[in-house]
Structure formats: C-alpha cells, structure tokens
C-alpha cells in the first residue's frame, strides 16, 4: 500500500507548486510576484511529462486497487489542459482594463488553479467514498475562490457567492447519498460497496435505501458537470467570472464530475439489466435528454457570448451523459462502449472549448468588451486569423466533420445505437442541429457584419500559443484521432469487484502507561 504514492507524482508536483506559488504571491517585489504564472506553467508542464511517465515514474495504477479504470487518461488530460489554461490566463487576475493585472492576488489565483488541477488529476485514482468527496471538493473549492477574485467587478463577487452556496448545497446532496451507500455496504471503499451490490443483486435484495444513495450521489454530482437538475447556476456564474476563469470552470469541475459519476455507476458493475441498473439508466436517460435539450434551446435565446457558451457547456454535458446511458457495451463490438465515447468526448470538449474561450479572451481587449454578440461584429476585417481560429473551434463545438467535435458526437451516437438507444441517438442528432444555430450566430457576427467600433485585442503571447495549440489539436485529432483514442481505450473496463482484496490491519489500540 505504501508504494501507491509513486502513482501520484504529477499530483505531488502540482500540489508543491501550488504551495510555492501561493507563498510567492506574498512577496514584496512586484517582479517576484510576476514569476508566479511562470512557475505555474512550468509545474503543469512538468506534471504533464510525469503523467506520461517521462521521469520513469509508474503511471498505470493496477486494477486490483479498484480505482477508475483509466486514471492515467484523466491525469494526462488535467495536466495538458491545465498547462493551456495557465497560458490563457496569463494576465489574470484582471483589474479594470485588461492588461492591468491585480498582482496582489496573482499568487492566490494561480495557486488555486494548481490545487484544483491536482484534484482533477487525482480524481481517477480514488477508490473510496471519503476520497471521492475530498477530491471533488479539492477541485471545487479553489474554483469558488477563482470566480470571486479573478475580476474586480461586483458581478464576479456575486457569481462567486452564488457558486459557493449552491456548490455547498450540491455537496450536501451527494454526501447524503454517500452516507446511504455506506449504510448499505458498511464500508466506504469502492471494492466493498461493489461487492455488496453484486451480492445483493444476485439475491434480488438491493434495499431501497442503497438505490436512493446512488441516485442522490449522481444528482448531487450533476452540479459539477452542470447537468439538469443542478444546471441552473451555470449561466450566471459563467457570465460573472472573468473569461479565463469561465474557461477553467467549463473543464475542471466537469471532468472531475464525469469521472465521479462513472465511478459511482461502476459500483453496480455497469449492469443496466439488473433492477438497480435499470433505475440508474432511466435516471441518466432523463438527465441526458433534459440537459442537452434545455441547454441548446435556452442558448438560442441568449445574446451574451459567455451565456451562450455556458448553455452550450450544459448541452455538451447532455451529450456525454448519453455515453453513460449506453454503458460499457459488449466486448465483441467496441463501438458500443459508451464510457470510452464519453471519455473521448470529454477530452475533445476540453480542447475545443478552451480554444474557443482563448480566442474570446484574446478578443476582449477592453473591459466588458467581447461579452455581447455586437462586440464581435466584423472581427474578421481587422483580425482575420483570430476570427478563423474562433470559427474553427466553434465548428468543432457544432460537430462539423474533420474536427474533434464531429468524432466525439459520432462515437456517442454509435454507442447509443449499438446499445439499442435509437431514440436517444435521434435526440442527440436533432440537438446537434439546434446547436448549430447559436454557434453560427457568433460566426455570422464575426464575418457578415461591419465593426461597430475599433477593436482592441489582448496581445499576450502565451494566450496566442494556447489558442493555436487548441485549434491545431481540434483539427489534427479530428482527422487522426488515434492518439487520443488509444489513451481513452487503455486498460479496458472494470467488471465488478476486483480479484485482489487489500486487507487493512486493525489499528493497534493506544495503551497508556506501562
């Protein structure tokens, strides 16, 4: 057991860097404080190398410990997207006009970002309900602070407070569910809970309270992925937060939440044929349909670009839930594997969404600019390259062929069809068509209209790098998805409880005196 620390090298790098950055932010000299984002970028790059095992550290966590089946993928994704997120928030936290940085809070901002990333990197390596809760909060609590301190406007404070209180409510809901799961299995460890579910479902005696526990856990965690029923905070929070923070919010809690939900569903062994499984599948189906339809339809009504992207983020959660409904599929047809499709979509969404947000940050050269559709009118005249990159990322979000968004939707729809959810597949395709309307509205504003006023952009070089890398990845992985597919497919899926059971020795009682 003690050897398991060796699987946490990327997380340890991120946590140490987070501590260093937080303390460095207190330095008296402004030049020292300005080093914080350099250190953050370096740490995420190092952690990325470590997550690939470049330092000779072991990366594949053994299945016997009953962790998430593909923890390595999540760690790589967290470090890679984390690096690009640091680049795209180079002049954060903003004060007044963009470019003016409130360097007093720089240490906190990047420290919190690194803490949250460490949580995302760790979420796949969790094998206990307590750990799951702690890591989910490690992801979330720093993001509450980032929302509130990322921007000096009062709207950011409001968003931060709203996000915090609703997040606490959601945490209460899924903790309550966890307590029922503990009451059912008598243990907080995944291996024991999975064994209890296997035993109970073979004898058809799964108690109602265990079912309630599963449902509440999934519904509570749906806050993290911004899915119905706990999606309502997303537009206000995404709009209120500074744009780089919004980009981060669309990735970190969502990735962690999806891995958490997959872990929870995997406690029942993805056995949707059982009575417990069929209830779970119904819940996930209803959540998926409502989430994507509601997100897309409400996005049509928006004029604020960050609100559009917030509703689009809700809709994309709906698509990913479809993969969960499809389940792990059958071994003989790899295309029916909805979980891998969801993980692929998660990676693709992270890249294309960050690309779109990076371009939005780039185009927000003035405070409060680039918020409304009118602010982007005629961008293509002065900044053709920026408009092109933005358009490519938006095309990927629509799901145009030759982009990663297309392949993501393709795998999701395939898994739904292969597992016999034809209606769900049709709903996904209809929703993808609805979504095209509001994404194309942004493209139309950039290309077909005349500028209303001269445009100012943010000139930061790292921001341009982040946008370029994301767009490049969107196109290249859209044509050659093999690298990403290989990582998402690695290690196969868990089938029930693992073979090896690690016994915990009884702690020795404390003996006082003699």
């Amino acid at each position: 057991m003690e050897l398991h620390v060796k699987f946490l090298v990327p997380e340890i790098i991120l946590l140490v860097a987070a501590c260093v950055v937080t303390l460095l932010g207190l330095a008296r000299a402004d030049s020292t404080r300005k080093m914080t984002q350099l250190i953050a970028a370096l740490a995420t790059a190092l952690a990325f190398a470590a997550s690939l095992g470049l330092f000779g550290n072991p990366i594949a966590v053994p299945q016997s410990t009953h962790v998430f089946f593909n923890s390595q993928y999540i760690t790589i994704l967290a470090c890679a997207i984390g690096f690009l997120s640091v680049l795209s928030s180079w002049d954060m936290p903003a004060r007044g006009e963009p470019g003016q940085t409130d360097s007093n809070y720089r240490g906190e901002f990047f420290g919190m970002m690194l803490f949250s990333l460490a949580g995302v990197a760790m979420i796949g390596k969790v094998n206990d309900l307590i750990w799951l809760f702690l890591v989910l909060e490690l992801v979330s609590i720093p993001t509450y602070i980032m929302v509130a301190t990322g921007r000096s406007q009062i709207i950011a404070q409001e968003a931060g407070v709203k996000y915090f209180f609703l997040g606490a409510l959601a945490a209460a809901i899924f903790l309550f569910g966890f307590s029922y799961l503990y009451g059912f299995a008598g243990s907080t460890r995944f291996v024991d809970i999975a064994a209890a579910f296997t035993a109970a479902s073979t004898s058809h005696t799964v108690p109602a309270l265990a079912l309630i526990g599963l449902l509440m856990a999934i519904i509570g965690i749906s806050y993290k992925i911004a899915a119905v029923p706990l999606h309502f905070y997303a537009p206000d929070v995404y709009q209120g937060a500074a744009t780089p923070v919004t980009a981060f919010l669309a990735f970190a809690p969502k990735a962690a939440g999806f891995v958490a939900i997959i872990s929870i569903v995997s406690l029942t062994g993805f056995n949707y044929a059982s009575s417990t499984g069929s209830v779970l599948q119904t819940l996930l189906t209803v959540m998926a349909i409502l989430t994507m339809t509601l997100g897309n339809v409400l996005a049509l009504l928006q004029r604020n670009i960050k609100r559009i992207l917030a509703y689009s983020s809700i809709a994309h959660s709906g698509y990913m839930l479809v993969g969960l409904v499809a389940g792990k599929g059958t071994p003989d047809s790899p295309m029916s594997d909805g979980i891998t499709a969801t993980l692929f979509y998660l990676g693709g969404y992270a890249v294309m969404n960050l690309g779109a947000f990076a371009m939005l940050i780039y185009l927000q050269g003035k405070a409060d600019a680039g918020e409304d559709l009118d602010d982007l009118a005629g961008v293509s005249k002065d900044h053709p390259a920026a408009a092109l990159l933005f358009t490519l990322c938006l095309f990927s979000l629509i799901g145009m062929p030759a982009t990663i968004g297309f392949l993501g939707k393709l795998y999701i729809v395939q898994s739904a069809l292969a597992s016999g959810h034809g209606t769900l597949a049709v709903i996904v395709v209809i929703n993808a068509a609805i979504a095209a309307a509001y994404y194309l509205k942004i493209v139309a504003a950039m290309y077909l209209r005349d500028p209303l006023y001269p445009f100012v952009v943010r000139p930061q070089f790292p921001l341009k790098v982040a946008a370029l890398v994301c767009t490049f990845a969107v196109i290249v992985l859209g044509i050659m998805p093999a690298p990403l597919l290989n990582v998402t497919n690695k290690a196969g899926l868990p089938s029930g409880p693992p073979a090896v059971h690690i016994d915990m020795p009884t702690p020795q009682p404390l003996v006082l005196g003699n």
Partner: protein
Amino acid sequence: MNSLLPSLSLAAASYNEWAVLGLLFVIAAGFAAANVVLSTSLGPKRKGLIKDEPYESGMNPVGDTKQRFNVRFYLVAMIFLVFDVEVLFLIPFITIFPQYDFLQLGAYGIKFGVLFAAVLTFMAIILVAYLYAWGKGVLKWD
C-alpha cells in the same frame, strides 16, 4: 427505548422496504416539531428587564449585540480552523502510533517511518497555510 427504533424500522421494512424512508422523514420532522412545541409549551416564561438583557458572561451589559464586528475577528477564527483541522488529523494518528519501532507496521500495513513522514508532510502543508495568513497580515491587529 434503545430497542424501539431498530424494531420499528424492522417492522416497517417487513411491511415495505420504502417504509423505512418514510419512517426516517417522520422521525426527522417529528424531532424538529417536538423540540419547538415542547420548549414553548413546557418551558417556564419569566419576563423582566434583567431576563431580557443580552448575556455577557455575567458582566453588566454595555450595549446592544447588533453591532458590526471588526472583520479581523473572522480572520482569526479562520486561522483557528487551520489548527483545529490539524488536531483533528493528529489525534487519530496518535491512536495508531506504535510504541517502539520505526519499521513496525502501522495502519494499512504502512511502515511507521513512512506514516510519520506523511504526517510531517501534512503539517508542512498546514504550515504553508499559516505562513500565508501571516504574510497576508492577518495576525497584525492594527
């Protein structure tokens, strides 16, 4: 009374497995309602000038309680939390503290030396939080 609740829930479960959940809600709502009703109906009501004064640890009250407190009080309360959490984790650690040997196996089959290093790491992280608060000037009262 000790055996009442389990036997009630057993009886409910034999009737319908969802009845346990209903029973839980009835107990929760009943407990809340009973506390309010019983304390208002049974409690003695003695009103008076002295009784209605805010309690200030036996001192003569100097003013209203509805006033603004310096935000520093809350910051100090939050640093207290840092140490509170530290103690919360150190006490369980002490209970599995082996008597003699750093190579002895402790909880989870981890050698005690490793366990000790883990706790030192934990304390170092807590120290970072404390240094941060110090650097932010939370401890400076003026």
